């Protein structure tokens, strides 16, 4: 069950840790192994204690979602209510220290102190994770780390490691669904006692990214802890078939959205073109407007095939209309120069910086 986040966001975020505690934590994290070798004066065994990938010790600081969630400098309450559209930068990400339960900044933090929501999907880059860290093209070999931007449908986590203890399968599963359900919608929890591991599948990949950092090194009992990695694709043919169906449904939704955009976009650009034609005084329409429209796109697309990516369709039409006008009057309009400036302004300067 996800708690009501909008209700929690009415209060300021609290400081999860005092500055002194944080310094203590830094000292502790310098320990890079389990045993201290007095002859070599080094820590040995379990070199990955310091790294967050596969922990060898239970993490001490936990996120308490009901107490810690609140508004920060990234989403002050005034912008949430009315002036959300006017706020300059909508793309602030979740605070990774908040997820780990060690943010000392509290309400002055520049990142969000809340789990990811469905509405974030539009604002956040596909190439970044929910904490704003860059993703990579492939996973690491050990399936740890930030994750891959090519696998856009990844939402399953693997829980394992030598610290993981499963006493009772059913109760462990219930505990997992309760814990992970606090940060996002859980689709499925599967515990395999014989292999000493578990899988948690979320509705959205963003929740999985958050949970992966949040629950790293946690456990259900007193002294146990698990490591979390990304899961490989489930080889079960039934699950595969279900995944395929789900993907098809997603595709259908995307297509619907595209068609909506396409319909509205077409009418909009048509209107714009009409508006421009009225503005240009000595513009003479020689042919029917429909055939004109087709002509308007083609020469521009063939001339500079990569430029069209920057200039949208309406401006292309605009340009072609203006080009026609230039052909007629043999003079340049200042508007053309302005539009070109966006494309060519990097060519001359900055070479000898």
């Amino acid at each position, binding site marked *: 069950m996800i708690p009501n986040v909008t209700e929690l966001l009415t209060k300021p975020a609290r400081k999860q840790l005092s500055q002194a505690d944080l310094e203590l934590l830094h000292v502790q994290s310098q320990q890079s192994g389990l045993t201290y070798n007095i002859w070599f004066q080094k820590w040995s065994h379990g070199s990955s204690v310091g790294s967050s990938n596969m922990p060898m010790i239970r993490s001490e600081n936990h996120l308490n979602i009901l107490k810690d969630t609140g508004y920060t400098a990234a989403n002050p309450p005034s912008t949430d209510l009315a002036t959300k559209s006017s706020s300059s930068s909508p793309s602030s990400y979740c605070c990774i220290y908040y997820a780990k339960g060690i943010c000392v900044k509290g309400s002055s933090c520049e990142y969000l102190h809340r789990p990811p929501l469905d509405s974030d999907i539009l604002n956040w880059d596909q190439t970044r994770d929910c904490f704003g860290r860059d993703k990579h*093209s492939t996973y690491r070999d050990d399936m740890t780390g930030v994750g891959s931007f090519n696998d856009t449908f990844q939402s399953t986590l693997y829980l394992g490691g030598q610290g993981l203890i499963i006493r009772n399968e059913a109760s462990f599963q219930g505990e997992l669904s309760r814990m992970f359900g606090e940060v996002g919608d859980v689709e499925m929890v599967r515990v395999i006692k014989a292999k000493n591991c578990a899988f948690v599948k979320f509705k959205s990949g963003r929740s999985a990214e958050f949970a992966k950092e949040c629950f790293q090194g946690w456990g259900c009992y007193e002294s146990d802890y698990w490591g979390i990695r990304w899961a490989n694709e489930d080889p079960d043919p039934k699950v595969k078939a279900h995944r395929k169906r789900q993907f098809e449904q997603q595709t259908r939704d995307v297509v619907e959205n595209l068609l909506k955009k396409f319909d509205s976009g077409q009418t909009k650009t048509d209107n714009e073109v009409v508006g421009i034609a009225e503005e240009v005084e000595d513009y003479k329409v020689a042919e029917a407007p429909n055939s004109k429209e087709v002509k308007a796109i083609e020469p521009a697309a063939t001339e500079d095939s990569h430029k*069209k990516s920057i200039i949208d*369709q309406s401006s292309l039409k605009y340009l072609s209309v203006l080009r026609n006008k230039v052909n007629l009057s043999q003079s340049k309009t200042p508007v053309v120069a302005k539009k070109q400036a966006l494309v060519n302004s990097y060519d001359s300067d900055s070479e000898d910086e």
Partner: protein
Amino acid sequence: MSTTSSDTTQPPALCEKCLGPSEHLRMLRDQNSLECKLCTRPFTVYKWKPHPNSPYKQTIICLTCSRQRNCCQCCLLDLTYGISVQMRDEVLKMAGVKSLSNEMTPKNEVTKLYVAGNEDKFQSLGGAGVSKDQEKAREVLRKLAIITKQQEDEKNKLIASGKNHQTNDKLPQNLEKVDVTKIFSKLPLNGSITPEQEKKYSTLFIFGIDPSLPDYKITNHFTSLIPQQVQTTTTAQPIKAYVSCQKSRYAYLTLSSPEMADAITKGIKPIKDQGPGRIIVENVPLFVTYVSKQRDFAKSNIERLKIGSLISKFIRKLNDTGNANGNNTKRKSESVDGGKAKKSKTITKNPEKKETTIIVNSTADDGSFEL
């Protein structure tokens, strides 16, 4: 390691959304400063601020890779459609575009470099060739509009014919040999939804769940069943634990207190006087009963599947009787069980209207339900 020569002289390929709303942009150019995330060659990086107060955005793949995939150098979404490249390829497949050139994106390190280095050979990967061409891209959308309409019609037809939810189980062949009677006989399939006076249970047994029905939809449905007065008086989370086994098609839902369980079950109608209650979540009928304690699931996958198939059969029978009870089915009640029922009792209901006799298979009552 070669860099693309056109990289430094040409402007980056970026989408409108990444560039931001302002008309005038200042960009920083940095030659060969990063390695392209797709082909691993160094490339010219551009940085800019989409909003005056926002952090810098930058290009993460080289212009060659972007052109081959027709995607934005910053957000990697398709430049024409504004969707992810994988999704675009799938959409084009749906539209019936057959000539998706070089569908496989290179994975090997050397292949990546080779594909990126020979741009004239590999001008477009996947569906990039189609979406680059404005006319073709539009044509595809027009086609899709027709296709989606057809699919919707088919779907509506399916719903009208009542075959919307179909589970065609292809089960392993050696399933019949698996013996699960020990676990299956203990499942409270014939339990009741009406709360008992003496015993207070806070755990509900739900059966009939489906892999297409994710956990959160079920838990959300149950929380929505809690009456408003109860919701406001209690601060604790109403659901303590939800444990499901989708292969076996059943789950346990433990609530914070027996009172909470009673509040929820008041909103659920039993299918017959003392039987399990029925709710419908996302077109999937679920059956709910009280259970005294949660039991472990079967250990192996094959046992779980077997239990799942047994429960499917049980539900089919339950649905038949439930429909007959509803008085709106054309099916005659006698044909529900045919001659299969060994022991059967007859219940007469609705004396005012037509008399319908319902034969309920009571063999399942003592738990020794057979295939």
